[in-house]
């Protein structure tokens, strides 16, 4: 328990929080690596997952891709990246994306693919284009699973961003790795405790987001903007008769809505 006391007194000493190598700066670096890796993982995994989930084509690709990416060792890719591209943000980002893409891809794919077919068919029969169905009908319904994937991805990335320190980069891993290298285990413990705290806080925030995104619960409405109300607004605007009954305004606006979005949107399918 002696190490723990030393570590805690290190954390609760204000002088250790400031400066370019202080706890504050290390946390900022750690969050920076995490954030960049998560953003790029989302940019790659979510569109692919949505397209495959929507069309049902390439399901095999998801399963194989997810397994293969999971099997690639993060540390190996990171260190190889440093040897090939030198130090910088590219190697850790690429290495951490290997952890972020599989859960996001799996979550997005299964979220979109598991939307009730009756709901999708209803949207289609109302004249929504495929792209619109994907964005306005399937995505809100799949949101809990997509955010669940995002939660797992963030958790994995923030936990593993510690390895960036091994490649002479910053982040909370510095404490962990330097502490072990210098046999000062209380320093290593500082890193371990801070990473754990960071992971727990972010995870709790994401758990809340998943809870709030449950479709039909109206939990997100309290925060204002949501896809569904936006859609209603557009229908009301395009039909021009706000006072008309819901059913009436929908049927009158359907043709104009369809034409507008057939023109405006790119290809609604993935065949192109």
């Amino acid at each position: 328990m002696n190490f723990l006391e030393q570590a805690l007194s290190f954390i609760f000493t204000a002088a250790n929080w400031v400066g370019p190598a202080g706890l504050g700066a290390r946390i900022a670096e750690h969050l920076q690596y995490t954030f960049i890796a998560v953003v790029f993982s989302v940019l790659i995994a979510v569109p692919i997952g949505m397209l495959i989930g929507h069309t049902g084509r390439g399901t095999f690709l998801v399963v194989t891709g997810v397994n293969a990416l999971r099997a690639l060792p993060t540390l190996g890719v990171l260190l190889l990246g440093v040897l090939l591209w030198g130090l910088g943000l590219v190697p850790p980002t690429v290495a951490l994306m290997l952890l972020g893409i599989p859960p996001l891809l799996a979550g997005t794919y299964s979220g979109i693919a598991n939307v009730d077919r009756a709901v999708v068919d209803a949207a289609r029969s109302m004249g929504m284009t495929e792209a619109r169905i994907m964005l306005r009908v399937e995505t809100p319904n799949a949101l809990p699973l997509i955010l669940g994937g995002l939660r797992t991805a963030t958790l994995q990335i923030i936990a593993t961003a510690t390895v960036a320190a091994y490649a002479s980069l910053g982040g909370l891993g510095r404490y962990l790795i330097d502490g072990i290298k210098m046999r000062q285990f209380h320093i290593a413990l500082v890193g371990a405790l801070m990473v754990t705290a960071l992971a727990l806080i972010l995870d709790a925030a994401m758990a809340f987001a998943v809870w709030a995104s449950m479709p039909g619960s109206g939990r997100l409405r309290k925060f204002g903007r949501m896809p569904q109300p936006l859609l209603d607004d557009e229908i009301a605007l395009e039909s021009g008769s706000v006072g008309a009954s819901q059913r009436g305004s929908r049927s009158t606006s359907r043709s104009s809505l369809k034409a507008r979005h057939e023109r405006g949107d790119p290809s609604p399918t993935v065949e192109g």
Partner: protein
Amino acid sequence: MTYLLNNLDTAWALTVIHLRLSLIPVVLGLLIAVPIGALVQRTTALRRLTTVTASIVFTIPSLALFVVLPLIIPTRILDEANVIVALTLYTTALLVRAVPEALDAVPEPVRDAATAIGYRPLTRMLKVDLPLAIPVLVASLRVVAVTNISMVSVGSVIGIGGLGTWFTEGYQSNKSDQIVAGIIAIFVLAIVIDTLIMLAGKAMTPWARAQRTLEAA
């Protein structure tokens, strides 16, 4: 690639360590998680408690746990036992959530039918519920096994053995072919273990195969 072929002996020795460190926890975790998961499945309060505890344990970063664990249990920081205990904790945390979910996937009429023909709760669990839960359980087991293999390789930055040592050695001596060899070895290892678990799951659920051929026909 040539590095791998030239060092097959070392590769094999490291693979054995790697497998020991990553798969013993899978077995231990399964042995702990299945009874707990089966017990809490029907009690909402206990199940929620288990899920929350498991999520918190799972949130602790693995590298951090390798360092923190020696403070709680009497192991040394770079001890193999330390790694095995840490990974067993993760495996249990993940499986203890997966087992009740897998049991949920057992159709209610099947359960009722088993009770109706006279199965006692324990025998029903062992002979009806658990076998039917295998497909969902196998899916989680595959994730756990592959994750553990990857976690052990990350552990090499704090001096844990296994194929990950090729990364740290290769990085320190600036040999990218050694790192590539390590990546290939771990990748192949993970894929092989993943496939083996999948095949074992298929072998244990012959009825699923029969159903598929029936549907195809």
